[in-house]
């Protein structure tokens, strides 16, 4: 509870299995990349502090399982997210096609207050590979059609654009947070004898 200026953002990473969600997170947080593939079961967590507009922001990154059989915690994980990162693999057209359902799934599960303006970011990963199958234009078009989702092409392996993408993620999520004012309707005055404070309350073990 320290410091009013501090912020914490819950960031969810979604996408098909093996598009590189965990690798992106690792590259961003630990500056490391491994070619070995290990599927995520359930979820992993990472924390990273960044500075956005002179504010220290802690990013609480929730890296989820792409494989359906490991997604045991859907709703629970999406709940209360500040930003959602959709990842696809530029060499795997199916992973791009599935962005639609990942986005829908998120909006249904997380049911954010203003789904139209919920901050998503799309990352086309593995641009370091030669056999690219999804063109930049195609991806950009899709993003535009979804209320102008910011789009970045990344390589978790080479560290291309990763830092910048996450910086944008933090910035967009933070803007939304700033808009939300603290709700200031003070609770009603207590009415004696009302339901809430009935004298006969059995819980009232007396002092």
């Amino acid at each position, binding site marked *: 509870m320290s410091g009013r200026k501090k912020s914490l953002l819950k960031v969810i990473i979604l996408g098909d299995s093996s598009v590189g969600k965990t690798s992106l997170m690792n590259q961003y947080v630990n500056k490391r990349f491994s070619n070995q593939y290990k599927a995520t079961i359930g979820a992993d967590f990472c*924390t990273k502090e960044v500075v956005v507009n002179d504010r220290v922001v802690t990013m609480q990154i929730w890296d989820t399982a792409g494989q359906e059989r490991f997604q045991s*915690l859907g709703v629970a994980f999406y709940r209360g997210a500040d930003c959602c990162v959709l990842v696809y693999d530029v060499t795997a057209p199916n992973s791009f096609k599935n962005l639609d359902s990942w986005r829908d799934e998120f909006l249904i599960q997380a049911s954010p*207050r203003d789904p139209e303006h919920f901050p998503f970011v799309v990352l086309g990963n593995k641009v370091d590979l030669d056999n690219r199958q999804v063109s930049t234009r195609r991806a950009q078009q899709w993003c535009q059609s979804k209320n102008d989702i910011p789009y970045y092409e990344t390589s978790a392996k080479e560290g291309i654009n990763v830092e910048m993408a996450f910086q944008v993620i933090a910035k967009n999520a933070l803007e939304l947070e700033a808009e939300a004012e603290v709700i200031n309707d003070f609770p009603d*005055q207590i009415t004696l004898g009302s339901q809430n404070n009935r*004298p006969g309350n059995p819980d009232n073990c007396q002092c």
Partner: protein
Amino acid sequence: MEVEQTSMRSDTNSTSEYLDAEGDPDAIEPETSLYQEADFEQEAEQQNHSIISELRDGLDATRDTSALSPEPGQHTKGLAASAESLALSTSTSAKTEDSISGLEEEYDYQHDSLWRGQKKHIFILSEAGKPIFSLHGNEDKLATLFGVIQALVSFVQLGQDAITSIHAAGIKFAFMQRSSLILVAATRSNMSVQQLQLQLGDVYNQILSILTYSHMTKIFEKRKNFDLRRLLSGSERLFYNLLANDSSSAKVSNNIFTFLTNSILVFPLATAIRSQITSAIQSNCSKIKNLVFAVLIANNKLIALVRMKKYSIHPADLRMIFNLVECSESFKSSENWSPICLPKFDMNGYLHAHVSYLANDCQACLLLLSVDRDAFFTLAEAKAKITEKLRKNHCLEAINEELKQPFNAKLYQQVVGIPELRHFLYKPKSTAQLLCPTLRHPYKSLVELERLEAIYCDLLHRIHNGSRPLKLIYEVKEREVVLAWATGTYELYAVFEPVVDKATVIKYVDKLIKWIEKEYDVYFIRNHATF
């Protein structure tokens, strides 16, 4: 391409085979991990631990043994191993070697032996897994751990169940879910899960006391991602003070015992003085509409309570008041008008409290609690009259005298003939008040207090055990003889010198009970007056 291939293979594998692969080559066996911290630290940096994989490993490993759940009837079986993954899977917390200049240095608590070695931890988080409070360490830097806690809670919730506790490596974790909050206590002490939950209940009440239930629920209904710290900032001291009630805070104090027995302490006063004080409050407040409670306290003990007819005050609510007064120095310098929610009285609204000390020369604090938010001047006037009256009939002097002379000096003097009685707790069944002498030798030192605390925790737990409550416990321990006795009218917990035999203990207990009965009205308030 290699990535693609491995991924396809992994897709076709069955879950269990996959898990084996996960454990190899660099995964850590949950059973051994805690004891290999030096190695673990290095490895941890190279890999992401998946909490659920650890959890499943744990489940598999314990399925056959099933001996890891020490509290029968609780659905925590097999989760023991996951406690270790609590420590494990958070290891990915960022070490920003690349940290942006200007940031304070990133600190990794999970590898800090001081942080890990704390006797007690308390964590509060939102349902979304966002940190709200950590007793030790900056909660922002523990964001990963909070995520793991949320995962554990949700995982069990998914099976239409609720996680109550985890027991692992000598640490108890107690969980509590209330409205949109998750509260967790972890301890190495002797406190039972129920006792930890009582503590979490107090913490939850403290949040309600600041925000009210309705306000907090409305906020989370509108925004599940709300950072509750925004509304609680500035109130941190209340939480720290509330939780600094046992030896884990390295303070020698008595507060733990009121909390453990869900009671409060009464300021000892002669019956005549107390009734004079009560009537001074009554006569000056009886005509004030909407005044619900008048509470006079000194030194964390209740001097007098006057209440509106039909309403009573819950000990948990009184503890909120004590806590507020104890950690608000500013009350000493001026009159205050402060909203406070007493959750057991009405969790959805604020009472408005006129708070002030009786006089510069009398450090007793008077709280006049009204439902009327415009009552300040009426109450201020009443307070002035009360002080005047108490000065006139020498009650201020009587209070001061008691404040100067710690009451247990007197108490022990009067309980003469029992020098072997080291300490005791006495709680009548009819009220939530506790008689508890301040600590004396040998429990003045922290180590000894810890032992005393452990003894009482254990006795209280066994007397109040839901499935098998005991009525009488007599135990000869290495360094003391202990007794717990629950009758129809009181509970007594007493600690004697180790040399005393059973017959003598019985004789002494008899003597003590007789003495308490005789002095009852000095140390307890039978009935609280009404306006």
